[in-house]
Structure formats: C-alpha cells, structure tokens
C-alpha cells in the first residue's frame, strides 16, 4: 500500500515539476540552435507563478463552461499522466481500458478547451477551436493505430503491462512495425503539442495560431492552469513515446537504486526526444493550415502500415 502511495506521490511530483522544465528546456534549446540567447530554462516556472498571482478578466458573455474548462484540462492531463509508466513499469493508476482511457481523457481535455474557446463568443476563440478539432479528428485515429501496434505486441492495452513486456525485449524497436508506429506517434506528438510544422507555439499571429487562439480570452490563474496543463500533456505524450518504444532503464521492482537509475534514464531519454523535437522545429517551416491534414494523413498511413506489418513480418 505504501509502495503504491509513494509511487503515486513521486509520479505526481515529477509530472507537475518536470513538465514546465521540459517546456523551458525546449524553448532554450531552440533559441540556442537559432543562436539567440533565449529565456532561461526556468522561465516556464516563473511564467506560471506570475500568472497565478495575477487577477483575472472574465468576459461578460462567458458562462460556467469558461471557468470549468481550465480545471477540466488540467485535471485530465494530470490523470493521464498518472496512468503512464514513467520511471517504473508500474503506473500508479490503471483505469478502464488503459491506453484507450489515455487517448480519450486527452480528447476530453481537448473538447473542454475547444468549448472554452467557443464560449466567449469571440471570433478568434471559435476559429482556434474549429482548427483544433479539424486537426485532432485525424491525429486521434493515427495515435490509436500507432498505440494499438504496441498493444498488440504486449497482448494488452494496459500501459503497465505493455511496459513490462517491453522491458523484456528491449531491442524490439528495431522491428519495422515499431519504427513505423514511432514515426506515426512522433507526428502526432508534433500536432498535439502544437509544434512548428503544425502550429507555432511562440506566436500570436491571428492567421496561423491554433492553440493560442483558443486560449486568447483566458488570463491570470486560468491561463496559468491551461499553460501548465498543456506542458503536462506534452510531457505525457513524450513519456508515452520514449517509454513504450525505448523502455531502457525502466525499473521493474521498487528499490531506491533501480528507481533512481530509472529516473536518470527517463530524464536522459526525454532530453534526447526534446532535442529531436527542437531539431524538427528549427529545420522546418510552418505548414499552411490546409496542408496540415496531409501531414497527419502520412501519420495515419504510417500507423495503419505499422499495424498491418505486425501481422506480416
């Protein structure tokens, strides 16, 4: 019992604290790669703290949905984070269908975010919501297909079980199905976290923004919650990617040494993936909005091929 509690506590703390750090890290790395000085790694913490202390402006037209959305988004993101194995193969929570719950809890968060964008009745919010939904309509099936490929290898949709199986066959990622699934999920990661070929996280330019358009009306603590939640979501997706495909160092028992080692490995893997994301972001230009479905279509086909090739190779 204490084991489960410490595991949950550790994971929750990791989730809440590492997520802004990761966002800050990506920003700094990106700035360095573009030979800019950039904000410090800790800037995301400062932003969140500053926003939490500020007052709020709530539009007169907003209903309760506007206030509920930040909590929903934050709640679902954290809940999903607790369902994914981070340093040990056992995730603290395991609800309903495991990986299915992960995908649909994320979808629930996105749904409320889109509602929050629509609720104020401003045109930008609606625009952002409609774009977000367009993208997620294709990104979601691609994500499902890619994750099912992994689940098929483990004969289970439970993420802890998947991680346990993955640890026993650590060179599995060389199989073509795994590689195709990784590629598909990577594109989905880019799309879901609003990174450059799909959305630019650093801009407030009306014509191109997606995520920023939805949260344009939010301010103060609500904005802090949403920003925090989106960095948690990013961490969750990246964890899913590194731990299901490269399960090195995931500890299967509960001792200080193995968990510590697991933590070190986990952070190193995250850093590597962050570097990859930064590289993609810096070397690519943003796609025109109508081209985004094409990119996601590639992800979808890759996911489908991955699923098919598990049966054939």
């Amino acid at each position, binding site marked *: 019992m204490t084991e489960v509690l410490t595991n949950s506590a550790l994971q929750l703390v990791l989730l809440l604290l590492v997520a802004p750090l990761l966002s800050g890290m990506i920003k700094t790395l990106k700035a360095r790669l573009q030979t800019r000085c950039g904000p410090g790694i800790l800037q995301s913490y400062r932003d969140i703290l500053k926003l939490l202390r500020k007052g709020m402006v709530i539009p007169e037209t907003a209903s309760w949905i506007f206030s509920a959305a930040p909590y929903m988004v934050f709640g679902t993101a954290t809940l999903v984070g607790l369902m994914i194995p981070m340093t040990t193969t056992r995730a603290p929570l395991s609800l309903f269908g495991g990986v299915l719950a992960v995908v649909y809890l994320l979808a629930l968060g996105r749904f409320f975010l889109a509602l929050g964008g629509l609720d104020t009745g401003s045109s930008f919010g609606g625009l952002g919501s409609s774009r977000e939904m367009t993208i997620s309509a294709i990104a979601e099936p691609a994500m499902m297909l890619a994750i099912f490929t992994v689940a098929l290898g483990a004969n289970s949709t439970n993420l802890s079980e998947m991680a346990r199986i993955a640890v026993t066959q650590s060179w599995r990622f*060389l199989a*073509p199905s795994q*590689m*195709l699934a990784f590629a598909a999920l990577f594109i989905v990661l880019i799309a879901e976290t609003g990174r450059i070929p799909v959305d630019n996280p650093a801009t407030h330019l009306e014509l191109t923004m997606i995520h920023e358009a939805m949260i344009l009306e939010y301010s103060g603590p609500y904005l802090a919650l949403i920003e925090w939640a989106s960095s948690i979501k990013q961490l969750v997706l990246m964890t899913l990617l590194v731990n299901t495909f490269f399960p090195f160092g995931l500890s299967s028992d509960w001792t200080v040494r193995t968990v510590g080692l697991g933590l070190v490995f986990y952070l190193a893997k995250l850093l590597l993936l962050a570097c990859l994301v930064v590289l993609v972001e810096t070397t690519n230009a943003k796609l025109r909005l109508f081209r985004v479905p*094409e990119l996601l*279509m*590639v992800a979808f*086909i*890759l996911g489908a*091929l991955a699923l098919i090739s598990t049966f054939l190779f």
Partner: protein
Amino acid sequence: MPFAPNPELGNRIITLMAALVLVLQIAAVGQRRIVSSIRIFAVQSFLLGSIAAVIAYFNQASHIYIAALLTVFLKAGLLPRLLERLVERIGIRREIDPLINVPLSILIAGCLTLLGYVVAESFYHPEETSARAALGHNTLAVAIALFLIGFFTMVNRRKALTQVLGLLSLENGLFLAAISLTYGMPLVVEIGIFFDVLVAVMVLGILVFRIGETFDSMDVSKLRKLRE
C-alpha cells in the same frame, strides 16, 4: 566457412531498412517540392545500396558488394546531382501539382502497400527455405509496394521531371525485389540495368529540357498541342 554472421540479425537489419525505404517512398508521394523529392530519392537509393551490402555481407556473396557500390555511387550520388542541375537549368522550383490531391494520394499509396503485402504473401514460405536463403525475403512486399507506388507516381504527376522520379523509384523497387529474391543477380545483369537507367535518365533529362524550352512549362499534357 571461416566466419558465418548470424542471419537472424541480418534479417532484422534488412527488414528495418526496407521499412525505412517504404516510409521514404510514402513521404515522396506526399512531397510537393521537386528538390525535396530528388533528395528523398537519393536517401532511398542510399538505403537500398546499404541493404544490398548487408545481404552481401550475410550471404558472403562478394559480387553484390559491387552492385551495392554502384547503387550508392550512381543512384544516390550521380543521378540526384544530374536531376538537381536540370532543375536549376530549367529554373523551376515551383511546387508539384499532382492530379489527385495529396491526402488521397497518400491513402492510395497506403492501399498499394497493402496490395504489395497481399501479393507477396503467396511467395512467402519460410518453412521451405533455409535461413540464409530466406534472408530479406520479407522485403519482397516492400519491393512490390515500391514498384506499385512508383507506377502510381508516374501516372499521378503532370510534370515530366516528376514522372522521371516515379520511374526511378519504380526501378528501385525492381532492384530491391531482385536482391531480396535471388540474393544477387549475376553482376552482368545488374550492370546492364544500371547503365540502362543512367542512359534513360540522361535521355529523359534532355527530353524534359526540350519540353521546358518549347512550352515554357513541363506539363506533359501540353504535348497534345503537337498534334496540330
């Protein structure tokens, strides 16, 4: 035999690289810029050369090394260089406009891959062949998919140069099928094919250049005007 590398490992590496080749092919279908298509083709050819080299290493068939070297040198080095120079001379950097829109094209490419898998299934008898001969047999599906997608690219594109690229990736599929099925055709045949492709690309290059000069465009549908 002094040293026999583990065919299981070889099989894994080959399958992985074949999957990469397939990913590149699908990426090429979704690609709109001519220069990027050419670069994708170069990387794909390089991977094919590597597959040939791996097969040569694990089967200890030294003549395939020559085929691998030729592939890397000609298809990953010389041909892309030639094509890029051609693009520069004609001065087109504009986007490719396919007949069928890109998402649908990618979907069709996925279906063609599926077809490749279905067709290759009937050739696949792992229990009847030895481990060494079975090396790379599972890449046949990828090879057929490359062939079909290459063909589709040729049909789907309007511009002459991109049709040449389709032809080249179709030829890549043939090469992959040949080395994965027979683990190496006789070298004479390989060299014959290489020079065939080289000459074909040169002739097509001149043709494309002429089309560009005459019509100020590379749209092959404008060739209809020649009837009048």
